[in-house]
């Protein structure tokens, strides 16, 4: 691998699309570059479950022919991307990270995959994930995904491979799915950008479900503008998903450069300054607020009193939905689940209905609090996670008390689940590194269907800093 090749691989999808359009880079050359990197690096990182070299190169040759014929090119034309193995791909095994579906081959593409392909994308392969996108997998059926910043550390989940592949330049951009942080958590731990769109903005058709009221596909990229590029391709009404909105899809790239002057930013006190937030994370997020002030935004601390309970509220609702999805297999194929997945689903199957209903009411209250804050602030700001990526071994430790269970499952989820519970868009953006060299991430949250403001604020911060430009040591 030449330095020039690595430099090319680490360019953003939008930059690469420009090079393809200008005939400075061939889609075939680009696809081969990523396939070579996957071959060389993924044995350690385990971002991919399935790689599609023949199909990707065939698509790249078609893309190259279109360039040479000077056809009108779609914005994503010739760009190699990869998707979480939760999304159906016609004729390609789609496992959802589980042995239960290890031989499952869908007949049709998920709507998001069809749209990315129609936008000119070249599908490199299917990416690793925690089993059934649940989180807490102990033994990954298709290999332990590892953080490219430190192989002993967790890459985050559930879209683990989607974060790794972007961070390690094993694709130009990726698609994940976010029920309660599954795009933003791996983006945070792997040091890339991850966007959870407004619930209802992107079709869920062809994506294995967890929670009907919170699941949403979302892009991961090496920059905010790449997240905007992918969102543009996948957003919009889909007759196959009746819960998608018919609201018009704006041009997300148009306002990216408008800056943050005059924006009102609320810093969520409980998540930024709470006792669970590691000091290095808190300091990095406070520095983000100061940077945004320097760029012309007005910031103030705000309070969301129910936020510390968001993780538990989320699990009472989303996990119960998931238990319903899995009920038949839990009865007939329990031993085929990973131990962590099985225990989580069994727990969710037994949640008392009174507890679920109380959680549903609390969700409505939390949502109302968030929407009230967002009526007075353009953007809310907090850490994406209370800590940088923990060691993989920490997630495998046995749970021997209810206190350990609470610490393991609820604390970290309280940072990413508020946006899921409220249905608002949120984005994770790199904002620094720990002393040990692991990425730190800030989260911005905006009003429903106002991804344009969210992306604009994130882009302004990203352009004023440059954390996204660092490369992980395991990817040279």
């Amino acid at each position, binding site marked *: 691998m030449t330095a020039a090749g690595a430099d090319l691989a680490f360019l953003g999808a939008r930059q690469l699309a420009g090079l393809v359009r200008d005939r400075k880079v061939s889609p075939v050359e680009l696809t081969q570059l990523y396939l070579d990197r996957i071959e060389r690096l993924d044995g350690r990182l385990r971002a991919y479950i399935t790689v599609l070299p023949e199909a990707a190169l065939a698509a790249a040759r078609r893309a190259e022919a279109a360039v040479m014929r000077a056809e009108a090119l779609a914005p994503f034309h010739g760009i190699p991307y990869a998707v979480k193995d939760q999304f159906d791909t016609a004729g390609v095994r789609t496992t959802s990270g589980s042995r239960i579906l290890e031989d499952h081959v869908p007949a049709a593409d998920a709507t998001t995959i069809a749209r990315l392909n129609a936008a000119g994308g070249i599908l490199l392969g299917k990416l690793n994930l925690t089993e059934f996108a649940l989180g807490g997998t102990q033994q990954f059926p298709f290999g332990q995904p590892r953080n490219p910043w430190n192989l002993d550390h967790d890459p985050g989940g559930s879209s683990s491979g989607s974060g790794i592949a972007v961070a390690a330049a094993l694709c130009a951009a990726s698609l994940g799915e976010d029920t309660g942080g599954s795009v933003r958590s791996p983006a945070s731990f792997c040091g890339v950008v991850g966007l959870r769109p407004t619930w*209802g903005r992107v079709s869920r058709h062809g994506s294995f479900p967890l929670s009907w*009221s*919170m699941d949403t596909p979302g892009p991961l990229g090496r920059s905010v503008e790449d997240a905007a590029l992918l969102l543009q391709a996948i957003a919009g009404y889909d007759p196959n998903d*009746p*819960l*998608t*909105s*018919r*609201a018009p899809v704006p041009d997300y790239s148009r306002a990216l450069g408008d800056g943050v002057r005059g924006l009102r930013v609320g810093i969520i006190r409980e998540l930024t300054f709470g006792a669970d937030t590691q000091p290095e994370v808190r300091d990095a997020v406070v520095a983000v607020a100061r940077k945004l002030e320097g760029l012309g935004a007005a910031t103030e601390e705000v309070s969301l009193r129910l936020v510390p*309970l968001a*993780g*538990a*509220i989320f*699990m*009472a609702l989303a996990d119960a939905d998931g238990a319903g999805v899995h009920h038949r297999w*839990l*009865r007939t194929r*329990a031993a085929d689940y990973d*131990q962590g997945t*099985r*225990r*989580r689903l*069994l*727990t969710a*199957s*037994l*949640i*008392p209905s009174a*507890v679920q*209903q*109380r*959680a*549903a*009411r*609390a*969700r*409505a*209250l939390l*949502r*109302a609090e968030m*929407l009230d804050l967002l009526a007075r602030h353009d953007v809310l700001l907090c850490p994406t996670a209370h800590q940088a990526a923990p060691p993989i071994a920490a997630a495998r430790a*046995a*749970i*021997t*008390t*209810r*206190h*350990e*269970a*609470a610490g393991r*499952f*609820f604390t970290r989820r309280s940072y990413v689940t508020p946006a899921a519970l409220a*249905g608002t868009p949120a984005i994770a953006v790199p904002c620094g590194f720990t002393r040990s060299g692991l990425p730190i991430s800030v989260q911005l949250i905006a009003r*429903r*269907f106002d991804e344009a403001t969210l992306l604009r604020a994130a882009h302004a911060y990203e352009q004023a800093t440059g954390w996204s430009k660092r490369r992980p040591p395991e990817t040279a």
Partner: protein
Amino acid sequence: MVSDLTTDHVAALAAALGLPITPDDLVEVTHRLNALVEALEPLAALPLETIEPTARLADEPPAS
């Protein structure tokens, strides 16, 4: 009131639902379930009775 489900309670609930559960799973599932119920205990002090437990609220754009 802090929930204190025992492994016997959880085993009975699982059996009633036809869910097979191993002894090892049973211990951890009991911890997890107690942790969840306990974590949500503070909600009992909130005025939730007048709030409708809906996921989709009035600010949603129409789906069709």
